[in-house]
């Protein structure tokens, strides 16, 4: 029986220094390895083909989160982002919620968002809101109205339930929508928040343009996202082994493209956004993935994984690759903030 798994040599990717994000290669080899059986390979190949289209990518992302949200929430709680730690600390599971809160606070502080009642944000959009952890936190912190958007109907529903349970149903609401086509009029929000959703955007320019479009004059835009390292002036692209590693991660997490923090900065400049700042927080999140892996090996983590589906399990299997990426200084955890001109 012919293998359904196609392996072919990808066209060479040239990752430019100028603001053109590298595209992940179309899903190529899916390394099933010893787990291989024809059903698994068939599913992987189908998913690989589907993800190659934009509809397919959105569907893949929605399904990934529809499937994985419950597991994640039961082990990690309602924030679906990295914790912020002191560098070189080993973190335990009980440290993680405070670390995830700290991540939010560090991002707000880096961006200089004011607590002052006259200047604090009154309307907030949470782009790629997950189950609404950031939305609820920000709405409570600022007493603001917050709108969250996600591709996953399961997440939107859960986010709404949690908001109602916390008495925040009159402050936050969630919509199923695409970050690349936000369903809001121009200039709607004082704070535009994207916490670890940028990785999923196939078109970084469109993504940032939409953030800028829905930002009110003077609003703050905060992007916290995984990037690849900046290219050095003599480099035209990442090295082949680096590209290969990123591609493996892409497939499992429905990441269509990687770019560098500098690429984001250049995009922001091209959109005439102001006060553009960026920082590398890779050392502050390094304890996170080992902790996630450890949690998967707890009884609760393991049984939850077993009860979830293939997409979630595949995501879990790829976690060591994230650690490898960080160790090689290839994967960076970046914050990029800016403001919309008045």
């Amino acid at each position: 029986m012919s293998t359904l798994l196609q392996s072919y040599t990808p066209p060479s990717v040239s990752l430019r220094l100028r603001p053109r994000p590298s595209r992940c290669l179309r899903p190529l080899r899916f390394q099933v390895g010893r787990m291989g059986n024809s059903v698994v390979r068939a599913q992987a190949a189908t998913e690989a083909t589907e993800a190659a289209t934009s509809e397919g990518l959105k569907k893949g992302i929605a399904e990934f989160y529809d499937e994985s949200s419950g597991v994640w929430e039961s082990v990690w709680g309602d924030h679906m982002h990295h914790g912020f730690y002191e560098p070189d600390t080993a973190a335990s599971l009980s440290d993680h919620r405070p670390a995830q809160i700290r991540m939010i606070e560090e991002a707000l502080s880096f961006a200089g968002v004011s607590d002052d009642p006259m200047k604090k944000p009154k309307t907030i959009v949470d782009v790629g809101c997950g189950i609404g952890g950031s939305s609820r936190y920000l709405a409570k912190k600022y007493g603001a109205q917050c709108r969250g958007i996600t591709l996953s109907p399961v997440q939107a529903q859960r986010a709404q339930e949690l908001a109602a349970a916390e008495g925040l149903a009159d402050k936050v609401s969630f919509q199923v929508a695409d970050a690349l086509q936000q369903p809001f009029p121009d200039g709607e929000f004082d704070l535009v928040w994207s916490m670890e959703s940028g990785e999923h955007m196939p078109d970084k320019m469109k993504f940032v343009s939409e953030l800028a479009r829905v930002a009110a004059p003077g609003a703050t835009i905060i992007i916290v996202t995984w990037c690849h390292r900046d290219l050095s002036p003599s480099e035209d692209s990442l090295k082949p082994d680096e590209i290969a590693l990123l591609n493996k991660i892409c497939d499992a997490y429905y990441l269509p493209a990687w770019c560098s923090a500098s690429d984001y900065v250049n995009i922001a400049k091209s959109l005439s956004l102001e006060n553009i700042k960026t920082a590398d927080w890779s050392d502050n999140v390094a304890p996170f993935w080992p902790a996630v892996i450890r949690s998967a090996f707890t009884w609760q983590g393991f049984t939850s994984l077993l009860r979830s589906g293939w997409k979630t399990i595949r995501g879990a299997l790829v976690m060591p690759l994230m650690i490898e990426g960080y160790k090689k200084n290839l994967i960076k955890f970046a914050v990029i903030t800016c403001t919309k001109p008045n």
Partner: protein
Amino acid sequence: MRLLTHNMLSCNIKGVTNGFPLKLEADKWVTKEVDLNADFLRGIFPKIEWSALLAAARVLGFAELPEQADASMLSSDDFLRRFHHALLELHVEEGALVCPETGRKFPINKGIPNMLLHEDEV
């Protein structure tokens, strides 16, 4: 979906210039009581597109909002109560939001609008 949210949503289909406000179709809606916060209402009033709120509230059978509204009305408790009720207490559970230009319907299920576009609308 509360009408406060409805007041912030627009149709983003490519080429559409007149995507706001979305027309509301409601098959199922409920009233959920919320404490009235006058300061909040006064603060949000300037951001509200009144005619959109008026039309949406009427779809839900609430005809007690004035045709026009201006900030001077915010000192009236009676007005605040009606404004509060329309904005925050009416929840559409099932229905649709309809683009005024193209007629495209965005479904609302279990209170959550789905604003995803099809491939050819982008």
